[in-house]
């Protein structure tokens, strides 16, 4: 018995059990105390409120919503809004960051100076100020009657009106899956056929897969369209108001622009770091083999730079995803704002905060998991120290 306690494995297991046990006991105690206090104040705890209707409305939703809908539906809308804002912000920030980062590594002195100025300015102004700034700019855009028009989109102080497809929800979702497949399939095929197929053939297979996925998406859209109306619903001025299309509210645009520009300044530094991490030797070797500068970039410099930046980029993405909670500052009904409103209206503070934390954990952990997988898949094999 005593000798058992001296076994290292047994000891470690015992310590683990004790630790987890006391943690569970503490949480249980907290919950029971909270319940008693809440009961004394006449607040019932539990998740029943999720199925009651909210009685208030949201200002932006990609799904149909009104005041009669239950809370759980609103949470879903909030999460989708957060994801929509987050992905838009991340994609734009990545584009901005790549351009600025490349400018900073370019051999052109003016480009380098512009890039540095950009990073210095936008990295050093708090995000919330930038959100307010862009909100002010966007709400001072022309009225609907004097709207700017570009590519069928209308830019006004009331929001950005974009054309939407006249297609049923299910078909739209299926088409979106097709688009995702069009991106994911070539990547997957590229990985699995890396060794067994020639470069050119591999590219051909990838392009065919992407084209097939996109084509099936188009077919789904064409089949799912509402009969008798054009496939795209363009916004247009009718009387004093704009009709048709999807209205992206100024709150959303301000947040997306702010995250793109602020996040872009951080991503620019990550991109620059990634390119700086690529050894000059590899590029010289590629040049000495007669590869053109463009080939050296696409075959050697970019793939190696990407590997250097991806882990840091993942952190930055998780961080920017959390920055979407700035929505509450200008009144965009993201997940966080829905949670705040729910607390006001229902009084179920603890439960709702639990839902908020669980939601963000789920979003950010999946993001991190995806990036970890990509990192592992493309990690350089073996010891890199020898050059």
């Amino acid at each position, binding site marked *: 018995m005593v000798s058992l306690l001296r076994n290292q494995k047994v000891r470690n297991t015992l310590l683990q059990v004790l630790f987890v046990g006391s943690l569970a006991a503490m949480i249980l105690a907290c919950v029971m105390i909270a319940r008693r206090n809440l009961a004394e104040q006449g607040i019932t705890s539990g998740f029943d409120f999720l199925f009651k209707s909210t009685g208030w409305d949201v200002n932006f939703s990609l799904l149909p919503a009104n005041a009669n809908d239950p809370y759980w539906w609103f949470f879903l809308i909030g999460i989708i809004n957060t994801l929509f804002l987050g992905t838009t912000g991340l994609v734009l920030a990545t584009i901005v960051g790549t351009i600025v980062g490349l400018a900073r590594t370019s051999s052109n002195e003016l480009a380098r100076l512009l890039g540095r100025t950009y990073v210095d300015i936008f990295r050093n102004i708090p995000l919330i100020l930038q959100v307010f700034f862009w909100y002010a700019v966007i709400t001072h855009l022309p009225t609907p009657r004097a709207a700017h028009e570009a590519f069928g989109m209308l830019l006004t102080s009331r929001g950005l009106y974009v054309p939407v497809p006249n297609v049923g929800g299910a078909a739209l979702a299926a088409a979106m899956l097709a688009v995702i497949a069009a991106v994911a399939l070539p990547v997957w095929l590229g990985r699995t056929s890396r*060794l067994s197929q*020639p*470069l*050119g*053939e591999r590219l051909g297979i990838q392009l065919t897969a992407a084209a097939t996925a996109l084509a099936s998406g188009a077919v789904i859209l064409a089949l799912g369209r509402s009969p008798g109306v054009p496939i795209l619903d363009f916004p247009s001025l009718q009387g004093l108001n704009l009709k048709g299309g999807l209205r992206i509210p100024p709150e959303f645009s301000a947040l997306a622009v702010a995250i793109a520009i602020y996040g872009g300044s951080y991503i620019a530094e990550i991109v620059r770091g990634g390119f700086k991490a690529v*050894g000059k*030797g*590899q590029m*010289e*070797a*590629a*040049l*000495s*083999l*007669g*590869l*053109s500068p463009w*080939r050296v970039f696409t*075959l*050697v410099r970019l*793939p*190696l730079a990407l*590997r250097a930046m991806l882990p840091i980029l993942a952190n930055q993405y998780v961080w920017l995803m959390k920055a979407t909670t700035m929505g509450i500052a200008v009144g965009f009904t993201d997940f966080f704002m829905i949670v705040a409103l729910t607390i006001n209206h229902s009084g179920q503070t603890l439960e709702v905060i639990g839902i908020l934390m669980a939601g963000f954990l789920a979003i950010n952990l999946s993001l991190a998991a995806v990036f970890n997988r990509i990192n592992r898949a*493309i990690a*350089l*094999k*073996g*010891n*890199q120290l*020898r*050059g």
Partner: protein
Amino acid sequence: MNSTQSSGPAVRIENLDKYYGSFHALRKINLSVKRGERIVVCGPSGSGKSTMIRCINRLEQHNGGRITVLGTELNDDVGNIDEIRREVGMVFQHFNLFPHMTVLENCMIAPMIVRKRPRAEAETTARRYLEKVRIPEQAMKFPGQLSGGQQQRVAIARALCMQPQIMLFDEPTSALDPEMIAEVLDVMVRLASEGMTMICVTHEMGFARRVADRVIFMDAGEIVEEAPPEEFFTSCRNERTRQFLSQVLGH
């Protein structure tokens, strides 16, 4: 396929000048290398050996004089630069393999893209040269999974897969442990015996004695001495050369 002449010197360097800012790295270098000739370049650190051979495939741009490689003049003409780089292979001190590609892919990429060789042919060639440098069994590994000596042999195979007419070596063994130096030198000796035109920067004097047609000694950006190995090692005229030789041969 190439418009390079089949006669005349492989490399002709005339009055070559190279500056880094205001630093005069190469001073009026003159050197002519015949086809099939094996040149060993040595000299103290910072004497401009790397700079000189890197000028031959335009990894460095020269500021004065003329460089003609296989009859093509190396100037701002991108077409000329491409043509010369196709025919001149280079092996570096730190191997510089592409770490994200397998050994085989490292060897196939340039022939496929630059020489537009079909995949099967590129693979056959790559495997043949991997065999030649004695590591055919490592074809599917990544560079990071190989020893330094193996990596350098892959680097040699990668350059050879382009089937160049001239090979440049910049201290190919100085980053290697002693037991790996021999395996790399061995490959180089065999390459020399097959008639490859080679310009090697190296301090391996045994290699110089065995294969070099001429040994060139550089100091402070100049070619100080130039002689066949026997003469170079026994009766060099210059004081600096003698000093250098006593250092490298001393231990």
